[in-house]
């Protein structure tokens, strides 16, 4: 991070100096507001969840019961649903996104690559609720009448594919999330691949590697930190994704092995129940779920940023 080098003029009049000091203070205060907002968020989540934290303690994390009527609140079904749908999403979006990134970085001519990357990035600009509309009117019927019956008939002996074909559930949410996260994987991975020095590619080719061997055995390993960074970035997006998941996950707080079964996610339960939550503990339990989601995404984002920063540094040093 090169800070802009600014040449100080040797003679500075008193009034301009005062102007600079004011300017510095003003922008610093505005910058500090970012820290303030974040601190406020943490404070809100912490105090807002206090009644629930005091009541259930760590049991909140391990309890599988969610019953607002009897005031039993356990986070595990939501954590399970959130993690399961995100992992399913990555199982689809990582190969898809990495493959597309390889094509865009290694094979496509520069102009075509830029144009296609622009289109892929537009996918990230589509609002979540629109994915949700598409999901309930197009993906759910497709899953219900074609994909899920097919999975049951071919892989039904696995506990993963048991139960009725509802259309909504973990698998559908994972499929929708995979399309939503793929643009992050494509654009960050593509940049990491493009940052691999030309010499590395030529070294592999000069030894008689085929193009694919060069890409897969030399270029991808060289860019692996950036690629992992992109995967973590999209994992964080998937974990916190709300609207589309809410619309297709089935909204049933149960832990089930079958991917075809309905479930629930943290973001979805907050979206569905928060505005109607009555009673301090109920609301606090939802805020505590928000706190869990916050901590999860903070950790994953921090890891992702460190990884992406490390590749760009490494790339610039070696190339």
């Amino acid at each position, binding site marked *: 991070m090169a800070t802009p080098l600014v040449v100080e003029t040797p003679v500075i009049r008193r009034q301009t100096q005062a102007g600079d000091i004011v*300017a510095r203070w003003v922008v610093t205060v505005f910058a500090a507001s970012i820290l303030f907002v974040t601190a406020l968020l943490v404070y809100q989540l912490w105090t807002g969840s206090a009644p629930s934290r005091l009541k259930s303690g760590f049991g909140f994390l391990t309890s599988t019961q969610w019953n607002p009527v009897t005031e039993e609140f356990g986070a595990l079904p939501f954590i399970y649903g959130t993690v399961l749908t995100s992992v399913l999403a990555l199982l689809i979006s990582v190969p898809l996104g990495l493959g597309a990134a390889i094509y865009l970085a290694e094979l496509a001519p520069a102009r075509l690559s830029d144009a296609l990357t622009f289109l892929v990035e537009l996918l990230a600009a589509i609002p979540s609720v629109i994915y949700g509309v598409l999901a309930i009117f197009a993906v759910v019927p497709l899953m219900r009448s074609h994909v899920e019956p097919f999975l049951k008939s071919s892989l039904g002996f696995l506990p993963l594919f048991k139960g009725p074909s509802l259309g909504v559930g973990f698998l559908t949410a994972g499929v929708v999330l995979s399309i939503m996260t793929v643009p992050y994987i494509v654009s960050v991975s593509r940049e990491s691949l493009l940052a691999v020095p030309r010499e590395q590619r030529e070294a592999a080719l000069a030894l008689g590697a085929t193009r694919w061997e060069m890409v897969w055995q030399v270029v991808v390993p060289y860019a692996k930190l950036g690629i992992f960074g992109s995967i973590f970035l999209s994992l964080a997006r998937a974990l916190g994704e709300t609207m589309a998941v809410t619309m297709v996950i089935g909204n049933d707080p149960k832990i089930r092995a079958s991917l075809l079964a309905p479930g629930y996610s943290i973001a979805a339960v907050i979206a569905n129940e928060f505005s109607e939550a009555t009673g301090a503990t109920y609301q606090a339990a939802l805020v505590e779920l928000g706190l869990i989601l916050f901590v999860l995404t903070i950790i994953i984002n921090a890891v992702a940023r460190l990884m992406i920063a490390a590749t760009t540094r490494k790339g610039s040093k070696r190339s």
Partner: protein
Amino acid sequence: MSNLLIWRKGVNSVMLTVTGVFTVITVAALFLILGYLVYYGGSSLDWNFFTKLPLSAGETGGGLANAILGSLEIVAVAALIGLPIGFLAGVYLSEFPDKVFAPAVRYVADLLNGIPSIVVGLLAWGLLVVPMRQFSGLAGSIALSAMLIPIVTRQTEQFLREVPNSLREGALALGACKWKMVATVVVPAGSKGILTGMILGVARISGESAPLLFTAFNNQFWNGSIMQPTASLPVMIYFRALSPYDDWHRQAWAAGLVLIGMVLTANILARLVIARGISVPRG
């Protein structure tokens, strides 16, 4: 050719083809989404949609004029709050950085950017909805502005950094003091990029519904004031799509088409027209 070489060449062409197919699938997803929206949304869109209020459940007809107006209000207020703060914080990071504080701000801005929007909604709920005992458009705006600030900050910083130092030195050599140099030379030089970043940021928050669900909430009528529950297009789409009525589904498609039309127009405008020739980093 040896068997090994034939095998290697086979793997090579199969895998390279697969990467191409994956690219096609990914890009096709975009066109499939747009196609669906244009097909279903286009046939449901009429003049009433933009001018009439929603009718009660089960009745056919009506429009979402209040939601369109509400969205504009909420996003405009969010932009009024978020754009100046984000911009000035970006100026700080690029032009007046401090060794310890600036990296902290930068890092926290990145983290804030990655926090799920629904969690940001909880912040605005705690700040405004709880003390006022009422959902309000303003609470929604606050939530959206908290999302907008880090985006605009990092974009502003990035584009100001791309301004060459020779410009800064030139201005200082003419006797300008630092803040005048920044205001008259550096910021204008980076203005194209900053504007792009701002448009992309506003486009992003205008499609958000999760943080509005329990802040701005929803409303079937014209919004009286920003201190009242306020309807917005994304939230309206959510409730309409989950309703059991065909006519409301029709409206959800139409509203989706309008929303995506606005968001994609802003994106294309910002990236292809305003930012022509400069590279736009992602938020």
